[in-house]
């Protein structure tokens, strides 16, 4: 039977599902409710000198009937007094001593940092998260991502905190940077116990095309915000992987970004996170999604024979390689299951207009099932990705698996194209119609 308990950099929790710092962790009321429903931990809404927020704070991307596939906010840190938050924190810990309560912090001076760290320790917090990630509102005042983007500043502030911290310290990273491993290494150097990523991505979620102003609209104006929700998961996964693989990081990672179900969580764990945090999905569906998350994770672990979370943290990392180490001899071709095909011909037009002209329509107009032209198919996956029917287009392996040749090996053997008109060009093997053919169809 799967055991979901974790010990994350010394912070114990009944399961790896934590609420990320944000509106769902604004108050002790919400956090108690979440714990009661099964959440394993909560990172308190970032504390500091309380702010004043604007009204009209969120924007979202909807995609063909799906609401909030991407979410954007211009909210700042907590707008509640520190004393109220601390009192509630103490109360939560009284009722849920075994759950992880982590205080997210953002202040400016050394004095403020050291003061607030001690305050939350006294209130019973199990850990501290340093918010160096917020990409709007706070960075203009030299906080949030302004810190996260400067590894040296990040290192300095973290070391102030480490001087007084008696509980584990997590540094939360901003993705608004070209190499995420640089601030991650700085956190490690300063002695942080863990990192968490990603915070939101600086963004404009859209433009009101009649009023000529971006969303969310505050009176007649707007401002850039932070992007999150399901759309950012791939970016977060890649950054988590980069940190997990880096030899100079090697501290626990709490994965954040677009997680809304157990499968998303497992993906983060497989890429090296050992706890995960959720914000947007709870803002969308409420705390109740935890039931599906824990049940799904247990079922996944049981089906793979994993007894503890550690047993599979980072299990996919060895398989994420550099492109030049991939096998160029591996060959797959698309195959259409004629029994399942419904004749939408989306694969035809996708390959015809957007790929390699490797799908033909049937000569018989009444037969709407397209045919793969294997000679031209490069095995790109496009058709199988857009096909609306489950398992209708599959990619079938054609090489026998005996040959292995990578770009690196070919380069070493001087067997790669080097001139503009090189005969070794990969595209030489398939037929490209002449430009004029386009007008004859």
């Amino acid at each position, binding site marked *: 039977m799967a055991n979901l308990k974790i010990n994350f950099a010394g912070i114990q929790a009944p399961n790896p599902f934590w609420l990320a710092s944000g509106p769902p962790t604004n108050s002790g009321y919400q956090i108690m409710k979440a714990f009661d429903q099964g959440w394993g931990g909560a990172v308190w809404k970032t504390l500091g000198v309380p702010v004043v927020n604007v009204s009209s704070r969120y924007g979202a991307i909807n995609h*063909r*009937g*799906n609401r909030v596939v991407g979410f954007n906010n211009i909210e700042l840190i907590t707008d509640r007094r520190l004393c109220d938050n601390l009192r509630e924190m103490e109360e939560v810990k009284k009722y849920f001593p075994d759950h992880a309560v982590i205080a997210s912090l953002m202040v400016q001076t050394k004095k403020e940092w050291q003061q607030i760290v001690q305050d939350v320790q006294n209130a019973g917090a199990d850990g501290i998260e340093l918010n160096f990630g917020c990409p709007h509102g706070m960075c203009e005042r030299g906080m949030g991502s302004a810190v996260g983007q400067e590894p040296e500043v990040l290192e300095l502030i973290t070391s102030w905190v480490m001087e007084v911290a008696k509980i584990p310290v997590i540094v939360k990273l901003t993705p608004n940077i070209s190499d995420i491993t640089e601030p991650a290494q700085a956190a490690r150097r300063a002695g942080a116990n863990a990192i968490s990523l990603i915070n939101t991505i600086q963004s404009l979620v859209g433009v009101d095309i009649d009023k000529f102003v971006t969303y969310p609209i505050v009176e007649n104006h707007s401002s850039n915000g932070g992007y999150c929700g399901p759309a950012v998961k791939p970016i977060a996964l890649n950054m988590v992987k980069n940190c997990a693989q880096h030899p100079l990081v090697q501290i626990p990672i709490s994965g954040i970004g677009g997680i809304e179900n157990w499968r998303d969580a497992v993906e983060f764990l497989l890429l090296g996170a050992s706890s995960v945090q959720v914000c947007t999905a709870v803002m969308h569906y409420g705390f109740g999604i935890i039931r599906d998350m824990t049940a799904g994770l247990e079922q996944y672990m049981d089906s793979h024979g994993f007894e503890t979370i550690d047993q599979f943290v980072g299990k996919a990392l060895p398989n994420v390689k550099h492109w030049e180490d991939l096998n160029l001899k591996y060959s797959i071709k698309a195959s259409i299951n004629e029994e*399942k095909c*419904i*004749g*939408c*011909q*989306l694969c*035809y*037009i996708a390959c015809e207009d957007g790929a390699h002209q490797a799908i033909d*329509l049937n000569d018989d107009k009444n037969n*709407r099932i397209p045919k793969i032209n294997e000679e031209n198919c490069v095995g790109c996956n496009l058709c199988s990705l857009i096909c*609306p*029917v489950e398992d209708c287009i599959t990619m079938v392996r054609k090489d026998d698996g005996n040959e292995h040749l990578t770009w690196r090996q070919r380069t070493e053997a001087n067997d790669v194209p080097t001139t503009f008109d090189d005969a070794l060009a990969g595209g030489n093997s398939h037929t490209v119609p002449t430009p004029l053919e386009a007008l004859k169809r």
Partner: protein
Amino acid sequence: MQDNEKRFPQIKPLMNSSEAYYESSRCLFCYNAPCTIACPTSIDIPLFIRQINNGNLTGAGKTIYDSNYLGNTCAKVCPTEVLCEGACVFTKVNIKALAIGRLQNFATNNAILTKQKYFEIPNPNGKSVAIIGAGPAGISCACELRKAGYQVDIFEAKSNPSGLALHGVAPYKITNREALMEVEYLREQFGFNIIYNTRIANIEDVQKLETKYDAVFLGIGLGNSAEIKINGEDKPECIGATEFIEQIKMNPSEEPIARKVIVLGGGNTAMDAASECARLGAEKVIVAYRRSEKEMKAYYFEYDLAKVTGVTGMFNIAPIEIVGGNNVEGVKFIRTEHVDGKLRNIQGSEFVLDCDLVIKATGQMKQKSLIANISGITMDETGRILVNETSGQTSNPKYFAGGDAVNGGAEVVNATAEGKIAGIGIHLFLSR
């Protein structure tokens, strides 16, 4: 007068904007889309659905009207189950087809209510065309001709336009208001004239048109309900289906409907008439058909719709007499069977079913007499006007035709398509 909009709730009501957004989100945007292929007017359905989804509702309306001038009427009355929606690829994986008809209604209703002007009408080109019949075929032809600058006068026997789309189509598919609203929208935009209460009745009338106009389009549809030619047919409670339906639609009476109704026939009109009687509160409604259930011409979903409202089907029984004194008291039937592929009465199997209303839905007659008077127009043996399919031209080059009068009785969408084709045909003929 009775309020039909209350008595007959719409089976395909107007979508609200949430419904339209979510429904349009489902469209796959098929290549060479089967729905478009299945539409007799070839509306670019994936395009207008995508336009709805992407917030260009007026553009969606334009896409529809570009192909089909009666886009709203068709959206409401087309048998979409056997046309566009029947072809939707989703049906092949047991997923509900896109509600194309209702989405089309959503877009065209908006176009009409916001009075979109999608077409530029050029200056008069100096030529004029007479159209006989303001039904779907005639209206569609008129729009096409106005777009090319012709003066168009439509002569209509009745006091309202839209032909059977107004007087015949079941009131739970389209309201009178909706049918009239679209023609009025088109008239305002295209500027054709409709001269009401003017039947082109005889050869003199036709000759006048021939001298005054450069071409004539015949969109006269079909005639009255066919007779069965059995004893007792002349009793007052034995009436034709199209006349009965026109009565309920145009002149709804306060009187309760008959208690027991027998509808004779097995086509869509029979199903409509029976459904309407059941919806009006008749206690028992029987559709009696000479042949077997399988041989009915009615679409399966029309029969289903009738059954749901409480209509009973009886098969292999042929009427031989309407019984009663001055009034209808029942119908005498004889059972039938198939012998060597031929339908035969079973001697001695006669029986009587009681009823107080008989509705004859065994087809409509052709309007042969008017056509027979016009020299050089040929008809087939059943009385359909013969035309060149690609131009709508009859064998008398000055005359064109389309709709029920040509196809023998199909759907509004076919009449619309044929009217447009003839409009293009007339323009080609007159601009040679």
